[in-house]
């Protein structure tokens, strides 16, 4: 079997999203197993400079659609460019990360290619000639294993599912014709929450607080614990209870109706662990919970728990982490 595996490389403001290098690494792993070649697709304005970085993760060819009109995302234009890249490259599988961009883009591409698609896969493997993907369903209360058929095929991979792995590729540039304006839809402006904050979905550590914090004043404990891990390492999340109470913005909510995160470490402070909250964090590698109720459901999914009052434990924990980092 000599398949072409095409990974979509997401860039914003000329910077490659780490999650798309994970998608590229998955493509490379599958190509190594099944035989075949890895290609990448890159869309944007003056982004060719990123090609050596992409080649460094195993891409033999990079299908490049460049135009000033593509500086910001347009689901309409990007999907047409990526579908064209998939056709030009002869891709049998198109992989992207399940990011805000990826989950808007790939279903459109899948429709343009009349392709089947698996969204938000957490495991992908080959069994003989078959591609088998597993994904959480019912908010992580069950996992569905799917066999895909037909070519091409589209897939999005949950961010932080596998570490990006460097591997030398040729990185030959192949130009794809850039769609021309007018577009049906386009991003007018990016409204960044704050540029020095690590986005929730990309952070290696997420520290989340719930109603157990008692008072919005005490949120400084959640932030303090996140900061204790060093600049840019940890992001802050929240349960719906505190979002609904107006302590925190909805953009910080973790769970079924909030963000899905899958960090190396998730710390839940004063969060009961309602099923809808677990939906957003149960694929985290390690979970630590601090809760005063020993029977709180959060302890059932936690690797490590401390039974206690967050207002009492967290200040000392912050000091202990700082001390450990300085040691």
């Amino acid at each position: 079997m000599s398949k072409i595996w095409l990974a979509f490389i997401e860039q914003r403001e000329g910077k490659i999203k780490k999650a798309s290098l994970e998608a590229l690494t998955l493509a490379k792993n599958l190509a190594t197993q099944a035989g075949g070649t890895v290609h990448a697709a890159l869309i944007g304005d003056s982004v060719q400079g990123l090609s050596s970085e992409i080649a460094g993760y195993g891409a033999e060819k990079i299908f490049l659609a460049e135009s000033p009109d593509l500086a910001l995302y347009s689901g309409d234009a990007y999907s047409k460019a990526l579908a064209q890249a998939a056709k030009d490259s002869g891709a049998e599988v198109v992989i992207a990360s399940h990011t805000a961009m990826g989950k808007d883009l790939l279903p459109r591409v899948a429709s343009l290619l009349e392709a089947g698609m698996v969204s938000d896969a957490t495991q992908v493997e080959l069994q003989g000639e078959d591609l088998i993907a597993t994904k959480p369903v019912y908010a992580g209360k069950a996992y569905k294993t799917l066999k895909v058929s037909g070519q091409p095929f589209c897939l999005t991979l949950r961010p932080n599912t596998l570490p990006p792995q460097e591997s030398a590729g040729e990185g030959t540039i192949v130009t794809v014709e850039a769609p021309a304006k007018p577009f049906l839809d386009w991003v007018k402006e990016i409204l960044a929450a704050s540029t020095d904050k690590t986005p929730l979905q990309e952070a290696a550590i997420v520290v989340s607080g719930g109603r157990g914090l008692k008072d919005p004043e005490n949120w400084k404990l959640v932030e303090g614990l996140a900061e204790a891990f060093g600049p840019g390492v940890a992001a802050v999340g929240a349960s719906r209870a505190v979002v609904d109470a107006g302590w925190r913005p909805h953009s910080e909510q973790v769970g079924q109706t909030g963000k899905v995160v899958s960090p190396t470490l998730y710390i839940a402070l004063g969060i009961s662990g309602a099923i809808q909250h677990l939906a957003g964090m149960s694929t985290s590698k390690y979970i630590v919970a601090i809760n005063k109720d020993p029977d709180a459901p959060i302890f059932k999914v936690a690797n490590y728990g401390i039974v206690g009052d967050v207002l009492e434990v967290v200040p000392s924990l912050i000091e202990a982490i700082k001390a450990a980092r300085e040691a």
Partner: protein
Amino acid sequence: MIPAILSRPFSEKTGLIPGTKKGADMEILVLVKHVPASDAAIKVAGDGRTIETAGLSFVLNPYDEYAVEEALKTKEAKGGSVTVLTVGGPETVKTLRHCLALGADKAIRIGVEGGELDGLATSNILADKIKELNPELVFCGKQAIDNDDSQIGPRIAARLGWACLSDASTFVLGDAAWSGERDIEGGKESVEGSLPAVITCDKGLNEPRYANMKGIMMAKKKPLEEVEASPMASKVEMVKLAPPPPRPEPTILGEGPDAIPALIEKLKNEVKVL
């Protein structure tokens, strides 16, 4: 905030821009799905492919509540009518009636033969019906909380050659265009586009209304049409449905601040974040 592209005056009350002609009828379609409630305990059935439905309560998909609400608000501002559409079995009529009770004018159920359809087959059936009904706006949820796919909205838009705003947390409608915002990693992006369009709705877009007694009574008399369609073959085949992979046995490190040294040791040597 009124984007320049939307030339009409903005109504503070509804957050919408009134249409040009009084009663300029706007056909609005809402795609809805009947799903197990978000707090339902999900058990895999003996066949290893489906869930046990006995005793489960099914509801309107939570994100579709925002879609129905946005459609009703749009109708209230611009005139027109709201039709709700689902692909599913006879049991989904309950959810369609609920949407009628909320204020939708008409409901359509498309029944299909065979088992569960994948995103391609479902979106193609919906897209065909949308083409036939020819609305100006289609609202749907950003994600169905059973399969958690988030495919249907953007898929339909691409198939029809329409604009799309997915994961909308704000939405403002003009005469021939719209603008809205969606969450991205670390912020938001503001998006503009043309009509017709598919809008997939996120939490925060609006405050969904509740059905009242009068609505429930009126719903019984509203038209509910049931039709059959033959879907294309799915390209994604179910191999198995399983409970989540087990998490490691939980370890309680202790009580209160005394347990901190044990946690630091784990963070250092096992989790390796220190």
